[in-house]
């Protein structure tokens, strides 16, 4: 039987060690965080490899580690659909977004959308979509954190939520982007190390031949684990999910924000290359973990501990490496959540302080000190909201909220970002309506879908049978953006396009 959920010395020591080291880094970073540029973008001082790890750290949430390993251990092939979907957006970021974004903006992706447009309408719409994405992502992480810590350490849910919120607040408030970047780097390193060690232990049982592992899974649980199951009930659903995962990655505000932490476009490009390799490797490893857990732990045991299968990787660690390794993996999972929450909060603070306060309320003429002060107040506010939401949604099934965040990012942020960079006739009104359309259509469709209308609100029948809104919300955002721009042309935007192109590709002019 498992010792999961009992106080585990190694887990507690590892986790406290992680927190102490990261707080030490925060203390060091705090002395280097005196300006907005340092608070939001680490002063552009991060190297390509560092940013690659940090991007990977921001992106590899506990949902990918525990969630995908669990999904694979439970349903086999279906889990693979998610891991592929989570990766294929990265090349798009490289080919279309990273370099122009770095050259054109300063702190948020909205800088790029609003570059040659009227600031107010664009910034307001983008802040709405950013804060919506960040909130749903935060809820999913906070509720996940509370549940996981309860399962793994036996700590009360509420305490776990408060601990995550407070520690994250300290990182962001005092250490800004510099501390957050280092937290992500350490976390990514630990996560990759833990997952790789675990995968090596699994493969060691099969003469280091993955085929032998897969063959054992077929023998053990039947050929069905190698085939698509109920996740892709119909093609429309599959395409819709794929669209949201792929384009959503390229529209996540906390990921896009990371490109401002490096010195130039070339470094931004190199950092995505690092990140994609690390994340791709990680998903291949997760796959070994999932099938390893299926064979070595057994599906019955995994489901008995947690219906969602989320404890597959920790259980596998216990079977292969004993209580000590279980403790280490548990601590890594907790650290993972902590780091992701910090990144999200920082991007929410940037939307509030830079986009809303700086550009909407102060017309872009905000004083340096004031902007930093507003950013810090926003950070405290967001931390309180995150803790509050975590407590409010206790016991709810919030797994769909990550999907919702991806859908909104794919439909509200990605289309506007792409059109602003490539289309001269894109207008302020077009950008605003496109972003609002993406956000609202995603929200409404999910509200009426089986996930919320039936599972959450307990209605008998969904109003729309589609679970993933991407196939409607992404085209809707493009169509509205194009139609509105064509109906009401904006000469100033067309005139500004040349200068934007120049700066997007050659970089800002020297001062």
């Amino acid at each position, binding site marked *: 039987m498992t010792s999961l959920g009992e106080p585990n010395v190694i887990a507690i020591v590892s986790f406290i060690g992680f927190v102490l080291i990261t707080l030490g880094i925060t203390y060091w970073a705090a002395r280097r965080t005196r300006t907005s540029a340092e608070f939001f973008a680490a002063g552009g001082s991060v190297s390509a490899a560092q940013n690659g790890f940090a991007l990977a750290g921001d992106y590899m949430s506990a949902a990918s580690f525990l969630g995908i390993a669990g999904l694979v251990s439970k349903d086999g092939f279906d889990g693979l659909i998610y891991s592929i979907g989570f*990766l294929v957006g990265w*090349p798009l970021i*490289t080919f*279309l977004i990273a370099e122009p974004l770095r050259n054109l903006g300063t702190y948020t992706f909205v800088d790029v959308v609003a570059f040659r447009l009227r600031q107010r309408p664009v910034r307001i719409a983008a802040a709405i979509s950013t804060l919506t994405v960040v909130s749903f992502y935060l809820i999913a992480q906070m509720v996940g954190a509370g549940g996981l810590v309860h399962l793994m350490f036996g700590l009360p849910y509420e305490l776990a939520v408060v601990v995550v919120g407070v520690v994250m607040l300290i990182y962001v408030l005092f250490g800004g982007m510099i501390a957050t970047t280092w937290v992500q780097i350490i976390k990514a390193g630990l996560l990759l190390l833990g997952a790789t060690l675990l995968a090596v232990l699994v493969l060691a049982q099969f003469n280091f031949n993955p085929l032998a592992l897969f063959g054992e899974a077929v023998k053990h649980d039947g050929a069905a684990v190698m*085939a*698509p199951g109920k996740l892709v009930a119909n*093609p429309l659903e599959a395409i819709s999910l794929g669209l949201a995962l792929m384009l959503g990655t390229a529209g996540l505000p906390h990921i896009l924000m990371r490109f401002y932490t490096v010195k130039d476009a070339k470094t931004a490009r190199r950092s995505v290359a690092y990140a994609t390799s690390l994340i791709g490797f990680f998903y291949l490893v997760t796959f070994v973990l999932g099938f390893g857990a299926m064979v070595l732990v057994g599906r019955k045991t995994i489901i008995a501990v947690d219906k969602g299968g989320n404890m597959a990787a920790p259980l596998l660690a216990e079977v292969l490496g004993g209580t000590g390794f279980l403790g280490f993996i548990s601590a890594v999972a907790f650290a993972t959540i902590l780091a992701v929450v910090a990144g999200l909060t920082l991007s929410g603070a940037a939307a509030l302080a830079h986009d809303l306060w700086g550009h909407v309320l102060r017309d872009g003429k905000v004083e340096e000190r004031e902007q930093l002060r507003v950013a810090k107040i926003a950070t405290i506010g967001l931390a309180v909201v995150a803790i509050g939401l975590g407590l409010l949604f206790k016991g709810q099934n919030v797994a769909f909220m990550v999907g919702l965040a991806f859908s909104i990012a794919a439909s509200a942020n990605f289309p506007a970002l792409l059109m602003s960079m490539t289309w001269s006739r894109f207008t302020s009104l077009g950008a605003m309506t496109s972003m609002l359309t993406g956000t609202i259509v995603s929200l409404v469709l999910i509200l009426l879908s089986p996930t919320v209308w039936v599972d959450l609100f307990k209605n008998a029948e969904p109003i729309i049978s589609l679970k993933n809104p991407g196939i409607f919300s992404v085209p809707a955002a493009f169509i509205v953006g194009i139609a509105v721009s064509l109906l009401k042309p904006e000469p100033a935007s067309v005139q500004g396009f040349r200068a934007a192109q120049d700066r997007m590709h*050659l970089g800002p002019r020297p001062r």
Partner: protein
Amino acid sequence: MDEDVEKLVARRWRVGSVLTAVMVTAYFGFILLVAYDKDTTGALIAGDRVSIGIVLGAALIVLAPILIAIYARWANRSYDPQVEALRKKRDGAP
């Protein structure tokens, strides 16, 4: 000079869109295969140990960094020097 910048921009978007199209086609091809032909996707190979779908999926995961490497090679060799030249023309010697 504006014309040179425009040419460069056009080339970059062309390379970017071709590589994007490769990734999108490969990914949605996979999704459609999974959705429409579950039997082929689930067919076992390699001594009944692994399915075609799993192998293709792993190949897609490997394809992503490979495409990025191709792009990075092009950018390092051809794009960066041109950007540098145009930037010097615009801003004067660094």
